[in-house]
Structure formats: structure tokens, C-alpha cells
């Protein structure tokens, strides 16, 4: 029996966009666990080192794989799928060895390639059905299931047209449908929003989020598009020059213990006194370009969120200043990305 929330989710598209911070709804009730475990993975092609010492633990949440061109993202994905053999290290995906259990891994994983690829001569429905058959679904069952996932992906009558006549965006949708036809436990999406218009892009990302939240499907989203990551990802991996530069939850990456503070109608005397009262050991005050204050916590053990707030309210009360804004100052993903890759490359934002 399916839960009431799952039934509602099917019928109500708004449900797709349910807050990602709602813990009751996280991973379809499935506990967060490590799905991919890579140890010192390396790949060298001739004299070029594509991947070096990649050690990662990826959970069944939505993980964004970021990196500039040539960072080794696609190679890493191909290694996970057993299409490319690593030259060093080892790894397991859902407790299966990536070197030995290639077919078993592919059975459990859904993958949409980055390239604009399709099987010529097939219609949309035939391609999804064939994909289902590759995953071991019997012919008729694969056809039924293909219709079901194409409905889910919003492909209507066009499913009966030859796929060679589809737009890039529609092919992306069909590729996505082909990847989820067998109900995979883990989904690897390589640039899934390329060629989609903003509306389609948002719908696709909602579907990704929905599959993760409602069905516990782990997702790895390789992309250049940082807003996509910001929209759906729980964790972020930044790859650059074949190395892992950052791997953390998106929230912790962005949270740098920085607080933004703005006060109204303040003259210079009050301002100086206010600044003085905020300057405490383990707490740094900086004045931003727009005139607002930034409180940077240097000693987290001393300055909790509540203590910082108490200090700010007390200083404002003493000085008679009116606080118009007091909020966490998050670092943008682009800034994090550029910092992680060392500022040598640029992401498309």
C-alpha cells in the first residue's frame, strides 16, 4: 500500500516543490546512507592524469557534481558505470564492486548521458520500452511502464513520433524517462537540463527532487549550472583537475558563520560606539560596501547563534539604534565554486 502522502504527490504537482528542509519528508522515509564509496580512485589516459586520488562517500540524497570542463566529472561517472576502468584505487556502489559487478551496478542505476544521443529509427515510446527491456522488463510490461514514465515526464502524443525529429529538450525528457523506467535505486544525471527551456528545466528538477524525497532514489547531478544545484541538491562535490576540491552538504558549505546586520538612522557617534560594543574576542566586525555590518564568528565554541543575537540586541538597546535586518549572510555557490577550483576556471551561472 502506498502512503497517503505519496498518493497526494501523484495528483498534486505542487507537492513536488515541498520544502527540502522538511525532515519528515526526506528520502521517502529511507534512512540516509552511503551509496557510493570510492577509495583513492585514479584514472590516467596516456600521459594525462584525468582523476587523482578521488576518495568520496556519496549518500542517497541529491548530490551535485560540479566542476569546470575537463575536471573529470564524466570520467568519474563512466567509472561508476563500469564503462571506463580506473587505473588506481577501488570503489563500491551499493555494496557492489565497480570493477567486478558492472552489469549488476547498471541494473540498479539509471543514467542519462550528457550527449544528445538516441537510437535512430525508434519512436519515443519504443526507446523507453527498449530501455526497459535492457533492464530486464518483459516486452509488454516494458511498454506499459514506458507509457507510465512518459506520462510522468510530460511527454504526450509526441511519444509516437520518431525520436530523430524531437527537439533537444524532448530528447532530454525521453532520456530521463529511459533512465527511470526500471525504478532505479540511484540516478546519475549528466547535464540533464541542457537544451531545456526554463519551464521544462524547473519541471525536470522538481521531478528529480520528487523521486528523491518520495521514493528515496539517490541522485547524482553533474552540471555546470549552479542554480540547478542550489535548487535541488543536498550535497555538493566540486571536482577540478581530477581532484575533489570540496565535498560537503550545501547548507554547511554556504554557512560560514557570518551574520549580516543593518540598523536604521544611525549617526557616526552611535555607529562607532555600536561597532566598539560588538567587537568581542572571537567575533570580528566588518563594514560592507553597502554600509551594513558583517559579524564573523571566529570562535564557534564561544559564539553561538543565540549569543550573537543577544549581544546585538543589547548593544542596540544601549545605543538606541533600530535594527532593520539581522540574518545569516550565506556565501553564494558561485563564490564557493570559484574558491574551490582556485579561481582558475569559470562556471556558467
Amino acid at each position, binding site marked *: 500500500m502506498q502512503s497517503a502522502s505519496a498518493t497526494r504527490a501523484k495528483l498534486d504537482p505542487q507537492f513536488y516543490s515541498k520544502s527540502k528542509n522538511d525532515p519528515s519528508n526526506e528520502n521517502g522515509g529511507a534512512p540516509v546512507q552511503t551509496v557510493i564509496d570510492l577509495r583513492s580512485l585514479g584514472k590516467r589516459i596516456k600521459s594525462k592524469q584525468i582523476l587523482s586520488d578521488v576518495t568520496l562517500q556519496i549518500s542517497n540524497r541529491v548530490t551535485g557534481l560540479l566542476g569546470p570542463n575537463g575536471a573529470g566529472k564524466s570520467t568519474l561517472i563512466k567509472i561508476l558505470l563500469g564503462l571506463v576502468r580506473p587505473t588506481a584505487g577501488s570503489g563500491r556502489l551499493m555494496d557492489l564492486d565497480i570493477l567486478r559487478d558492472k552489469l549488476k551496478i*547498471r541494473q540498479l542505476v539509471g543514467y542519462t548521458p550528457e550527449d544528445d544521443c*538516441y537510437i535512430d529509427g525508434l519512436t519515443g515510446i519504443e526507446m523507453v520500452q527498449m530501455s526497459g527491456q535492457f533492464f530486464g522488463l518483459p516486452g509488454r510490461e516494458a511498454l506499459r511502464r514506458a507509457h507510465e514514465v512518459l506520462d*510522468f515526464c510530460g511527454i504526450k502524443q509526441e511519444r509516437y513520433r520518431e525520436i530523430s525529429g524531437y527537439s533537444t529538450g524532448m530528447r532530454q525528457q525521453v532520456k530521463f524517462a529511459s533512465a527511470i523506467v526500471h525504478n532505479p535505486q540511484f540516478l546519475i544525471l549528466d547535464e540533464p537540463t541542457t537544451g531545456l527551456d526554463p519551464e521544462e528545466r524547473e519541471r525536470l528538477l522538481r521531478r528529480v527532487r520528487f523521486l528523491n524525497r518520495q521514493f528515496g532514489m539517490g541522485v547524482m547531478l553533474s552540471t555546470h549550472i549552479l542554480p540547478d544545484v542550489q535548487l535541488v541538491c543536498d550535497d555538493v562535490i566540486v571536482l577540478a583537475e581530477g581532484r575533489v576540491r570540496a565535498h560537503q552538504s550545501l547548507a554547511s558549505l554556504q554557512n560560514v558563520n557570518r551574520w549580516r546586520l543593518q540598523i536604521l538612522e544611525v549617526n557616526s557617534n552611535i555607529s562607532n560606539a555600536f561597532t566598539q560594543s560588538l567587537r568581542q574576542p572571537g567575533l570580528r566586525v566588518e563594514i560592507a560596501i553597502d554600509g551594513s555590518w558583517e559579524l564573523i564568528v571566529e570562535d564557534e565554541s564561544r559564539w553561538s547563534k543565540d549569543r550573537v543575537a543577544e549581544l546585538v540586541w543589547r548593544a542596540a538597546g544601549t545605543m538606541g539604534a533600530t535594527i532593520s535586518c539581522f540574518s545569516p549572510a550565506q556565501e553564494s555557490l558561485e563564490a564557493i565554486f570559484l574558491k574551490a577550483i582556485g579561481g582558475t576556471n569559470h562556471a556558467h551561472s
Partner: protein
Amino acid sequence: MPIHDVGYRRWQGTQSGFGTRWIAITNKGFEIAFRSQWVRRMMFLAWLPAIYFGAALFFFERTFENREIFNAVAELNQAAEMAERGVHAAQGFDDDDDEARPPGAPARPRIDLGPEGLDTEQKRRNATMRMLSRTPLLGGLVALLGGSGSEEVFDAIVSQDDTKLRRVVWSWFILKFITTPQGFALLLLIGWVAPPMIAKDLRTKAFLLYFSRPLSKFSYILGKLMVLVVMCSMITTLPALILYGCGIALSPNLTPLYATWDLPLRIIVVGLMHSIPASLLALMLSAITTESRYAMFGWYATWTLGFVTWRILSLAYLSQNQDEGGDVPFDPLAPLALEDGGGWIYVSLYDSISLVQSLGMGVGDFNLQAQLACVMLPLVSLSCFAIIWRQLSRATLG
């Protein structure tokens, strides 16, 4: 439009094993191929020769029932042989002595009765076959068998062994059907269907969709190969089996079945001997380019050039043999027997396959040419398979 969109649901059914996933590729490949009107037309036309061969087989059986012609041939041959011995005896020449001659001992000069320098046995054979070819019902059959087939038929007639004769005629007959009209139809059909099979997958990068699924490279190649093998079987093995079945069904008794019981199995083996190397060659040509027209050109060029080259080399060999005083007659217009040609058969895939097929039907000799052909076919097949494998590996890595 969905009547009721049920959204995404979990699927929990029984999945088939990894070993059978290639069947999906074969089914779909077959479906795609048959969408072409030209393929359907070719398939239809490819069955027409079966009518001619069916009629010829029927007439052979009718003649066989009457038997007079075969008895006459055997008696004529016996009489000619006795007359020849008589002439030899009159000239003080003992044939039995000659046959018992120890190896290395000098041969006594034979009497040359023929103006063309042929020995008398060859003349008898030729005369008999000419006689048979003038017989209304058997004329077509003799013309059809031509070259080396007629020798074995002649031997079977002379031996007056009904089982042997029936077996030899049926075997040659079905072999000719498979190698000549069906072989040609097969070339045309594969040349039309196979070139886009891998080339298009490379062009549209479909291999990423195949190999990211639980499908090995071997399964992929097997799936594609089976499309062609099944198609070849539909125009060679299947009609040949039906021809055989009709022959047996129309027989007045079960004697033909007793004489030819192993032919169905041989037909299947012979069909595979043609379809597997040819299909692998076609797939290999398709795998080395993204443009299917180049693969198509390569396919027809390979067969045509091989066919023509072998014939030129064979004629050159025969001509040289004649010049050096050999006993093989040189006739540039005569149909070439497969065992002629001085070991050049490996240049022609068509003739190599035909020769191996004749061995498969149990009517050929395992001579040097046959040995070369037997080595060449697996070699070609394995090389083609290796090239396809390499191309797919490179494409996946890219």
C-alpha cells in the same frame, strides 16, 4: 494522452537474466529493417527461385521412379568400359596389371582414343552428361549442377546405388539453391540492411544508451548479428528446409527420407556457414564508419572484387597449367569448378563460403582449396568481431 496519469510508481516485477537482453536489440532491429518497403520486396523476390528448384526436384523424382534413363546410362557406361578393355587387350595392354603397378614403376603408354587428349573415362563421363542434358526432365538439373556436381552424380548413376544417387542429387541440388540464387539475394539484402546498423548508433551516440544499461558489448554485437543471421536464414535456410520438406511430402514412399534424413541438419549448418561470416563482415564495415553509404560501398566492393579477382587468377592458373602440358583442359568460357584455381580461393569470400558449404552438405572434397577456405572463414569472422569490439570500446571511451 493518458486516461489517468498515475504519476511515478515503483516497479517490482520479475526481471529476465542478463544473458537474454540481446533479444530486445534483435527484435527491434528486425522491426526497423522490415519497415523498409525495399526489404519486404527483396524478401518476397528472394523466395521466387524456390519455385524453380521445387519443380526441378519434382521432375528428378519422377525420372527416378521410371529409372530407364539411369539404367541406360549405367549399362552404356559398362559397355563402353568393356569395349575399352577389349581394345586394350587386343593391343596387349592389361588394365588390371596397370592398376596393380607398384608405385614408382614406369607407366606403360596408354592408348589415346580421343582427339582432344582426354582419357577415355573422362570422355565417357562427358558423353553421358551430354546425353542426360538432352533428356527433357533432367536437362535443367544437369545444367544447374554444372562443374563438379555432375562428376558425383555420374559416379552415383554408374554405381547403380539408389540411396547414393538420391542423396548426392538432393545434396547438390539444395547446395546449388543455397549458394547461387539465395547467396546472391543474401548479398543484396545484407548490403541494404546491415550498413546503418552500427554506423547509425555511432553517429547518434546511441552506444551510450546501450552500454549504460546492463548490456555487455558481446550482447550488443550478438543482438545486431542475430538480426542479420535470422534474415539470412529466412531467405536461405528456411526455403531450403521447406524445399526439402515438400520433396519428402511429395515422394510416393519414405525412401527419400531414408536416403536424406541428415539433410535438414546440414541445411541449418550450411546456412550458418554463410550467414555468420557474411553478417560479421557487414557489421564490421558498419562499425568503422558513421556514414552507412561507405559501409554499403565497402560491402559490395569486397564481394565483387573478390569474386572477379579469383576468377582472373583461376583462369591464369589454368592457362599456365595447360601451357606446361598439364591434363586440365583450358576453356575460358567453361564454368569454373571450385577446386580449380591453384589455391587462390581465399581472395573470394563468396567462393570460399561456397566451398565450405559443399563440405557441410557432404559432397565436396577436403582438398587444399577447401582447407584454405576452412581456415579463412573463422579467421575472417574472428577478425571482424575483434574490429567491432575495438570500435565499440573506443566509442564508449570517447
